[in-house]
């Protein structure tokens, strides 16, 4: 038997001490329950391609004491539509694009705990996502502190995800790998026509929020995301010669992003201008820039309107080609239009309503607060260097709509 050295106990002791600190510092308080329920819809349509995703979500957050809260939730992606089966299959017109029907439901359940002493917060969460052809276990931990009269906030987050993707058995070389026709037999050990591939994700994020004056606040965020494992779409094939093969992506990818957002109060209008800028680069050589401008204002008695516009542009991945038969690029090949040079415009609006509380501090006689929210966005994308043979991308316009309600008891 090997005895652990005293230093091996240091991290658990530190963690225990931190938990005790928050537990002792938190004053008993009446438990407060916040429930969230809502749904979003994503709809994209054009030619023979269509995709509709309905996303219901319910969540509950219980503040047990002033320094200790737990949360739990469920969400789902209900997907239906028709996606491209073979990219660059002969298709001179949009209607000739070869498609495969898509129908799946992804469930995500999870929960977490939050410890806080008012100025410092520790949080940990776990989520399990599953669908016919994909499974994911994800953990995240975050620490946050507020300094200088709470005008400065720092937050660091680490997230780890263990994903499994269903696929067909590996061929002797990528050019011979067929695409997976459907999800039948996935995660069934007895089915020899299906295998499971792994994907590991590490996410590191740091954020600095700063109040500079009574009307100006900024937030600087930096993210590093490291992926190791299977990152292709097993259903998608690319024509690379006489035959088509399942797309073949590198197994490693490091993605880096830095964002700067601001909030500037416009006193004469009693509203706030909200600009944001983000730059991105990854080891597949994609570089992107997104710029956003929003304006939010209270119209009257708890009714708020937010309008926004966003522009996004990126170059293509180092191994992207619009035609791998005539212009192959290295040993990898992809049919993912989001790895081609592209740009997009997004315009949208959001209405939220917080009814004012009565003299007893209650809303509708039994709630401590209530928020209703309606949101809609239109996303128009442009893929000038992506074609299905010679047919342009037909489904380049998407609508995203959401409704939600948050009630606190």
């Amino acid at each position, binding site marked *: 038997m090997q005895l652990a050295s005293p230093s091996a106990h240091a991290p658990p002791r530190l963690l225990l001490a931190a938990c005790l600190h928050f537990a002792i510092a938190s004053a008993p308080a009446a438990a407060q329950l916040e429930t969230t329920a809502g749904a979003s819809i994503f709809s994209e349509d054009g030619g023979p391609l269509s995709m509709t995703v309905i996303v219901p979500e319910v969540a509950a957050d219980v503040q047990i004491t002033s320094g200790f809260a737990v949360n739990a939730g469920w969400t789902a992606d209900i997907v239906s539509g028709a996606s491209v089966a073979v990219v660059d299959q002969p298709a001179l017109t949009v209607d000739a694009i070869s498609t495969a029907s898509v129908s799946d439901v992804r469930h995500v359940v999870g929960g977490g705990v939050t410890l806080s002493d008012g100025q410092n917060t520790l949080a940990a969460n776990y989520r399990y996502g599953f669908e016919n052809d994909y499974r994911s276990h994800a953990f995240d931990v975050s620490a946050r502190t507020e300094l200088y009269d709470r005008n*400065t906030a720092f937050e660091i987050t680490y997230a780890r995800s263990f994903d499994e993707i269903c696929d067909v058995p590996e061929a002797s070389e990528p050019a011979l790998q067929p695409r997976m026709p459907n999800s039948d037999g996935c995660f069934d050990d007895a089915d020899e026509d299906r295998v499971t591939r792994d994907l590991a994700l590490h996410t590191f994020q740091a954020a600095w929020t700063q109040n500079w004056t009574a009307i100006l606040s900024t937030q600087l965020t930096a993210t590093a995301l490291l992926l190791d494992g299977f990152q292709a779409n097993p259903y998608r094939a690319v024509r690379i010669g006489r035959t088509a093969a399942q797309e073949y992506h590198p197994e490693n990818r490091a993605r880096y992003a830095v964002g700067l957002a601001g909030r500037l109060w416009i006193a004469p209008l009693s509203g706030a201008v909200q600009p944001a800028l983000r730059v991105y680069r990854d080891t597949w050589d994609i570089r992107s820039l997104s710029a956003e401008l929003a304006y939010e204002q209270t119209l009257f008695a708890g009714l708020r309107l937010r309008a926004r516009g966003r522009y996004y542009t990126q170059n293509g991945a180092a191994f992207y080609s619009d035609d791998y038969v005539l212009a192959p690029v290295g040993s990898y090949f992809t049919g993912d239009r989001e790895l081609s040079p592209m740009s997009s415009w997004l315009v949208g609006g*959001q209405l939220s309503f917080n009814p004012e509380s009565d003299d007893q501090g209650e809303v509708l006689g039994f709630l401590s607060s209530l928020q209703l929210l309606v949101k809609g966005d239109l996303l128009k994308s442009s893929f000038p260097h992506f074609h299905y043979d010679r047919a342009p991308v037909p489904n380049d316009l998407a609508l995203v709509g959401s409704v939600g309600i948050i009630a606190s008891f």
Partner: protein
Amino acid sequence: MRALLLLCAALLLGAGCATVRPEEKEFLADPAMSFTSGGMASRHEQHVLDNREGSSGAGTARGGGCGCN
């Protein structure tokens, strides 16, 4: 790189000087000044963008406390 680190250090040190007193935070406490307005709907939209663009990351984090009381 060294210049960037020096700039970040200067900004961090400057942050301590840029103190807004609690009684001056009326506008900072307005929901329009929050970095996380939209909640669930914003998360769903970010999920869409992550799947419809070749990049992701550097999303919003929770803002600083109001400290108005």
